[in-house]
């Protein structure tokens, strides 16, 4: 599959996401924020970073990038989209995912190897995992606290839209320990931790993140 990785001004983990796509057995295609052209990709990753410096609300400016018009349209038609960290924030700002991400409750940036439980393996990004599988991958964020109003939260939980949950400790104050989320259709996934930093033994926190990049091969979403 061809997987596009969007570079916004201030994207940082775009190269890492491309590498992870390749290691996962897919073709990585670089997409530029200013081009409203998805180059025929089958799926899109919005990578981590500090797009536009995160000086305004995280993701609030990137959401208006020309490429996002296309991403939003395709996502609504069912194309798999994964937003990692800043990408998750952009997906929330784009209203492809519910809720919002706010400053960590302890008000510090945090970088650690975080234990998660996969709560939903029925998405195109998590199908390589077992339901309930525990994985340890890198978490690094300053504004990763997931919030939503009570009704939204109840709906997310009720519909099984929580994709991953923090275990052992909650690193940023996310409600219900939510680390990752999918939309109602199940094709758009936002994840605060960074699976692309857990795809090689040599670097990062092991191999537990690889499933996010191999799931696409194992199931096809025409």
């Amino acid at each position, binding site marked *: 599959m061809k997987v596009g990785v969007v570079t916004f*001004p*201030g994207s*940082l*983990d775009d*190269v*890492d996401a491309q*590498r*992870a796509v390749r290691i996962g057995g897919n073709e990585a295609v670089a997409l530029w924020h200013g081009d409203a052209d998805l180059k025929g990709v089958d799926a899109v990753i919005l990578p*981590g*970073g*500090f797009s*536009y*410096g*995160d*000086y305004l609300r995280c993701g609030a400016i990137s959401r208006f990038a020309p490429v996002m018009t296309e991403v939003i349209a395709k996502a609504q038609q069912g194309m798999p989209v994964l937003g990692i960290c800043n990408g998750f924030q952009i997906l929330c700002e784009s209203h492809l995912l519910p809720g919002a991400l706010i400053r960590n409750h302890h008000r*510090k*940036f*945090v*970088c*650690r190897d975080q234990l998660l439980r996969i709560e939903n393996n029925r998405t195109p990004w998590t199908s390589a995992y077992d339901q309930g599988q525990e994985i340890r991958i*890198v978490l*690094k964020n*300053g504004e990763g606290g997931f919030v939503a109003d009570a009704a939204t939260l109840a709906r997310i939980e009720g519909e099984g839209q929580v994709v991953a949950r923090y275990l052992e400790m909650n690193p940023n104050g996310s409600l219900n320990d939510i680390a990752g989320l999918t939309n109602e259709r199940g094709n758009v996934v936002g994840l605060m931790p*960074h699976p*692309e*930093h857990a795809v*090689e033994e*040599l*670097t*990062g*926190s092991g191999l537990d993140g690889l499933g996010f990049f191999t799931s696409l091969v194992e199931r096809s979403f025409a």
Partner: protein
Amino acid sequence: MADSAPAPSRPALDTVAVATGDPEREQPWADLGLKTDEYDRIKEILGRRPTSSELAMYSVMWSEHCSYKSSKVHLKQFGEIPQVTPIGPMLAGIGENAGVLDIGQGYAVSFKVESHNHPSYVEPYQGAATGIGGIVRDIIAMGARPVAVMDPLRFGPLDADDTHRVLPGIVAGVGGYGNCLGLPNIGGEAVFDETYLGNPLVNALCVGVLRHEDLHLANATGKGNLVILYGARTGGDGIGGVSVLASETFDADGPAKRPAVQVGDPFMEKLLIECTLELFAAHVVAGIQDLGGAGLSCATSELASAGDGGMHVHLDKVPLRDSTLSPEEILMSESQERMMAVVEPANVDAFLAICAKWDVEAAVIGEVTDTGRLEIDWHGQRVVDVPPGTVAHEGPVYNRPFARPDWQDALQADKAEALARPTTGEELKATLLQLVASPNLCDKSWITDQYDRYVQGNTVLAQPSDSGMIRVDEESNLGVAVATDCNGRFAKLDPYAGAQLALSEAYRNVATGGAMPLAVSDCLNFGSPEDPDVMWQFAEACRGLKDACLELGIPVTGGNVSLYNQTGETAILPTPVVAVLGVIDDVRRRTPSSFQAAGEQIVLLGTTREELSGSEWANVVHGHLGGLPPQVDLDAERNLARLLKDLVGVATSAHDLSDGGLAQTLAEGAMVSGIGATVTLEGDAFVALFTESVARAVITVEDVDIEELRALCARHDVPMTELGTTGGDALVVEGQFDVAVADLRDAWTATLPAALG
């Protein structure tokens, strides 16, 4: 003149014509930090009084920070070290923005460590943030892609109120800026001592990678080439930061010039990195210079004097954040995230298009000339007309008086070896628990967890490993390792030996990871050069470092000096931070620092002596600093490094011995991995555990014929001692004590969160 009369609220423009016609005008040279003889020298160079713009330029460029006027006579000895690393000649050495060395396979590396101490005391967050920004621009100016940063930090006592003001801000600033740039922070130091109270040290190191053919040296050659300023707009921040902040001792009332600290914009810097590397790749840059201390004054004069002619600048073309800035302020502004390039006329359109792609503002502000003069105009009127070299390189040079302090003998006579020691096993255990929890030896995760160590996906080793290691090539697995070290307590006891011990430790830390040490960058942090005691410390440290580099055969590639780190009469511990960079052919074969598995044999490499003066034990248990530091043994360091290289793939882990001695090394091996150990110590158990003799490391091996290992050690002339085995959930010292790894870990990890929240 009449048709361009300045606004009524401003003083009349001081042009070259005005200066010539009004030679006796009073000028605020003293307020700008210039001495009488320096002002006289400027008048002698120009044959008239300087204009106010010229005065601004000379004052910032001749400040201690920019001109190295007190340190130059001592620094020049680093030039005596052959500019050759163990694997080949340097590609660029001292004098460039940053040194560049060959690491093989067509790759080169640029690295440098710099200080941002004074601004970080005044405004911790922005001071530390812009320290990262400055060193990163030095690296991209060489054409290198930054791949990692590291931060050696020094603070006052952990329980001091001001430390609680300064430390969280500095750490957040280092993280806030570096994280937003996408540069992994792979290590550094955090050391606490009362002399740093009011004088915190923020040193910042950056490593960049380039292909040999992409090396770019800063100069402005070629008449008619255009001078382009790009990046952030110029504002009023940091004006006079160099002369006023970095070159004056804080008096006890604290600094009065707060606005002189710059404000960083890491997003702009990230764009600047990508934009600059794309400009290089497109071959549209003839010369380049970053704007750091002294801003445009520095960039224009250095670029022009490094070229072959002159430069003509239209200062009113500089994009401004604040339209009311005067030409003097524009020349002195230290606004961050700016670069200056020299571009051939045919390439200007392509240059500007790349800047536009990255949303980076760019303006043509001048051109290269063959006049030999730096000429700067303000709305058509000449405000600067100087020989650029006199601004950039011909500042004053001081041979400051220095003398061995009269207290040095008494300090060295007060040996820690005479202090009361723990005698029973229980006392040794209590000492170990006290030391692992002490501020200098405790777990630094509270700090390092605020830094992104993973971004770019090439981090092979990071804190708490002995060195940070980065993969350079994903196909060949070529990599580099970097470590920074300095024990200021050793340097206080003997600055010559102290600098050598800093080098020894950094060199060893690169070697334990399996890399070959290649080159040095240094950041020399000292008190006031006007104090002969401090100047002696500085001179001795320089001499010690030079001699040790000659001995080890590794060059100093560049660095930075920070003086005036003192409050009132109290100077900081002399702190010559030494960074060593090494190369490793295959990062997959690196040696980790912590224990890897149970049931492995633990072996101590090197010679242990009774050397307790300056040790962490003396510091923590007795609050004592006196005696002589551990004996320097550079031959033993080199032998150990060669042995460790031969042990790559044989040793399953290797960890150096330094602060806290064998006790700390064994404890860290266990605490990081959760794997215990049982060891038997020969001789005095206290000395074996807590002495800080150098040129030592602990390795673990699995399924190795001990006699073969012994033969290999003998071949490298490194003594080896079998200590015991890994395993269990306790650290057991036979016949003395055992302590649960969990208890050690609790003590080790509790200190910083308890103090800092």
